[in-house]
C-alpha cells in the first residue's frame, strides 16, 4: 500500500503547490500518460502473451460478488478460450482497490466506469483497450428516477428532496446526476440532501422503499427499476461507455490479442457474436473501439464539479454536503 500513499502524496504535492512549473509538469505527465503509456515503467514482469499465463480481469464492485460471477464469468471464459491464457475474475468491492490493483499489475484488465478509469489513468497511466457497446451503443446515459406515484415532474421539482447516489466515485450514479441537478439549478448539499448507497441498485431500491425521493443510476439499472415502481424523470447527455482498461506497461502484443479477442473476432465470426448475445445485457452488445480522448468530456465534467482535485481526492471528499 505504501506505493499508493507515495503516489497520492506526490500527486497532492503537485497540485497543492500550484506552481506554473508543476502545472506544466502535470500537463506533460498527462500527455505522456495518454499517448505514451509505455514511458511508465512496468510495475510487474509481464508474462508472454498466449503462453498460459494466469491473468485477471478486475471488475469494480458494481454488484454483490455472486452477481459479478453471474454476469462476467462468461467473458472471462471467453478470454481464456481465445487468448490462450488462463483468465480469472478478480472481484473487488471497492473502486479504489480496483485502481490500485490494476496500477500494481495485480490485474491485467479492468472493467470500470469512466470516472474510475480517469482516476486510474491519473494514478498510473492505464489506458482503455475497448469500451462496451451495450445494446449496440458505445455510449450510455445516466437516469434520474423517482417513484411512480411521486409528484416530481421536472428536475427542478427535486429541490429539498433526499437524493440517492451510488458510490461517490460513480460516473452515472453520482457525477452526472450531480451535474444534471446543478444544471437544473439545484445545488447538491444545499437544495438537496445527498445520500450515498455505494451501488446503483441500492440507490434505486432506497427510492422504491421511500428512504430517498430520487436517485441517479446507470441506464440499464434505471430501466430495470422502471418496472419496479420507479419512473424516469430525466436522462443525461451521452457518456462514453464503460472501458476495459489494460494495466500500465502492457505489451502491444497483449493489447493486440485483446483487441482481436474482443472486437476483431466477433466482427468476423457470427458464432461468437451469437454467443455474446447470451451474456449479461451489459456485455451482450460486444465491444467498440475506444481512445483515451473519448473520456475528455468526463474529465471536463469532473473539473466542473470538483476542480482539478476531483481525480485525486479521496471518495469521501467528493460527497456533496459531506453527509452519507
Amino acid at each position, binding site marked *: 500500500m505504501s506505493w499508493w500513499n507515495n503516489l497520492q502524496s506526490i500527486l497532492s504535492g503537485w497540485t497543492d503547490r500550484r506552481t506554473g512549473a508543476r502545472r506544466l509538469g502535470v500537463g506533460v505527465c498527462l500527455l505522456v500518460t495518454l499517448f505514451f503509456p509505455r514511458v511508465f515503467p512496468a510495475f510487474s514482469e509481464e508474462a508472454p502473451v498466449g503462453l498460459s499465463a494466469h491473468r485477471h480481469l478486475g471488475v469494480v*464492485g458494481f454488484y*454483490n460478488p455472486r*452477481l459479478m460471477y453471474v454476469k462476467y464469468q462468461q467473458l472471462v471464459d471467453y478470454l481464456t478460450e481465445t487468448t490462450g491464457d488462463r483468465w480469472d475474475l478478480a472481484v473487488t468491492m471497492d473502486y479504489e482497490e480496483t485502481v490500485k490493483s490494476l496500477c500494481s499489475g495485480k490485474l491485467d484488465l479492468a472493467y470500470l466506469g469512466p470516472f474510475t478509469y480517469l482516476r486510474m489513468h491519473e494514478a498510473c497511466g492505464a489506458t482503455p483497450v475497448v469500451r462496451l457497446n451495450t445494446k449496440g451503443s458505445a455510449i450510455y446515459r445516466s437516469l434520474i428516477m423517482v417513484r411512480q406515484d411521486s409528484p416530481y415532474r421536472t428536475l427542478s421539482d427535486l429541490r429539498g428532496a433526499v437524493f440517492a447516489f451510488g458510490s461517490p466515485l460513480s460516473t452515472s450514479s453520482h457525477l452526472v446526476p450531480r451535474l444534471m441537478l446543478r444544471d437544473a439549478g439545484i445545488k447538491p448539499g444545499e437544495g438537496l440532501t445527498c445520500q450515498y448507497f455505494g451501488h446503483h441498485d441500492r440507490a434505486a431500491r432506497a427510492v422504491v422503499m421511500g428512504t430517498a425521493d430520487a436517485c441517479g443510476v446507470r441506464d440499464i439499472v434505471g430501466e430495470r427499476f422502471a418496472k*419496479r415502481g420507479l419512473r424516469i424523470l430525466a436522462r443525461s447527455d451521452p457518456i462514453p461507455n464503460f472501458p476495459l482498461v489494460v494495466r500500465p506497461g502492457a505489451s502491444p502484443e497483449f493489447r493486440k490479442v485483446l483487441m482481436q479477442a474482443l472486437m476483431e473476432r466477433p466482427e468476423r465470426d457470427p458464432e461468437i457474436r451469437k454467443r455474446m448475445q447470451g451474456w449479461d445485457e451489459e456485455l451482450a452488445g460486444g465491444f467498440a473501439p475506444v481512445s483515451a480522448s473519448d473520456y475528455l468530456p468526463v474529465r471536463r465534467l469532473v473539473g466542473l464539479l470538483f476542480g482539478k482535485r476531483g481525480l485525486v481526492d479521496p471518495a469521501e471528499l467528493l460527497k456533496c454536503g459531506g453527509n452519507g
Partner: protein
Amino acid sequence: MRLGLRTKFFLYSNTLIIVTMGVVAVLGITFERKSRYEAIVNRARSLTEIFAIPVTDALMYEDLGLVSESGLIENTIDEVVRRNRDLIRYVVVVEPSGRVAYSNRWELLGKPFPRILDQGAVGAEPTTEILQTEDGERILEVRMTLNISTKFWGFLAAGFSLRPVEQAVAAIGKQVAVIALILMLANSILTALYVETLIRPILALNDRMKRAGRGDLSVRSDDRRGDEVGELAGAFNRMMDELEEAQKIDIVRQFQLAHTEKMAAVGTLAAGVAHEVNNPLAGILACSENLEAALDDPEMVKRYLGLIRDGLRRIERTIQNLLDFSRARDMTLEPTSINHNIYHILEMTAYQLKSHGIEVTMELNSEDPLVLADHFQMEQLFLNLILNAIQAMPEGGTLSISTAVVNGFLVAEVADDGVGIPPGILNRIFDPFFTTREVGEGTGLGLTVSDTIVRAHGGSIEVESEKNRGTVFRFRLPFPDGAAKLGRST
C-alpha cells in the same frame, strides 16, 4: 316389471363394482389429496426455510456493511422462482417496518405487506395459510422470520400454487374413473360368460319345468354337472320319472275306467239289443214253423231258408256290433269320419231313443270332415253324450246333433231340451264318480271318460245348461297340422 336372472345378476354385480369402486376411489383420492397436500406443504416449508438462510445472510452482511446486498436477494429470488416455476407464485422479503423490500412481484415493492410477522414470531415454526387469488387459484403461503438467534431482519413470505396438486388429484380421479369403467366392462363380459355357464343350465331347467308343467312328462334335464345345479336337474329328472310312471299307471287306470264305463253303456244298450235280436228271432221262428209245413215244396223251402238266413244275419250283425263296441282296444289314431260315428251310434241307440219318445234332429257338416282320431273312442264319446241326453229327457224331447268346422277346429254339439243341470254342480259334472242319479243307475264316469277322450285327442269339451231348458255339450277337436282338415277321398 319382472327381471330375469341374467339381468338381476348383471345389475347386482355391476352395482357392486360401482359401489366398491366408488368407495375405493373416494378413499384413495382423499388419501392421495391429503398426502400430496402434506408433501407440498413440506416442500414449501423446506424451500422457504432454506431460502431464508441466504436472504438472512445477505441482509446481515448488508447491515454490517461487509458485503453489499446490491442485487443479490432479487437475483436469488428470481433464481428460486425460475427453478420452481410450476410451484412458486411469489416470494416477498418484508422489512421489520412491514414494507416489501424485495419481491419478484414488483408491484408489491415498497408497499405494506398485509400479513405481518413481527419480532414476536422469532423462533416459531413457519406459518402456513391457504389464500385464494382473484383468478381462483389457491395459494399456500408460507411465512417465516428472517433471524439469527433473536436478531430480526424482517420476514419472508412465499406463495406456492396448489394448482399442480389439484390437477394431479383431478388426473388421479379421472384415472380411477377410467379404471372403474374398464372394470365394469370387464365385469359385464365376465358376468355374461358366467351367466352362460352357470345360469344357462338353470334357465334350461326352468324351461324344461315349464314344458313339464304344460303336460310333457318326457322332458329331462342335463344332470351331468357336478354342482348344485346338476343335483337340482337330477332331482327334477327323478321327479319326472316318477310323474311319468304315475301317468302310465293313471293311463292304465283310465283305460280300465273307460272300459268299465263302456260295459255299463253296453248294459244300457242291452234292451235295444234284445229288441234287435228278438224281432228277427220271431221271424225265424215263424219261418221254421212254416218250413216244417212246406217241406215238400222246394220253392217254399228255399224261400223260408232265405228268410231264416236273413234274420240270422241281422242278429249276427247286431251281436257283432255290440262285441266290436265292447272290446277293449288300444288307442289307434286314423282319419275318422265324425258324421259316420254319429250315424252308427244313433243306429245303436235307436231303440232307446224311440222308446223314450225322443226325436232326433241333425245338422251335420255336408263336407263330412275327417279328424285324426280313434274310431271306437269317438263312438264311445257320442254314445256317452247321447245316453246322457236320453236320461235328461225322461218325458221325451228333441236331441239335436250338429258338426261344423270353425277356425280350424271340428266343433260338434250334442244338445237336449231336458231337465238341465243345476248351476251349482255344473263345474263338477266331469269329476270322476260324480253323479246325480240314484245309486246303481250309473257309474258316474260317463262324462269323466268323455272329457278324457276329448283331451287325449288334443281337444276340449265344454257344457252349457239351463234348468228345464236343456243342456248342450260342445267339444272341439283339432285337425291334423292345425287348420288343415283331411279331405275325404272320393
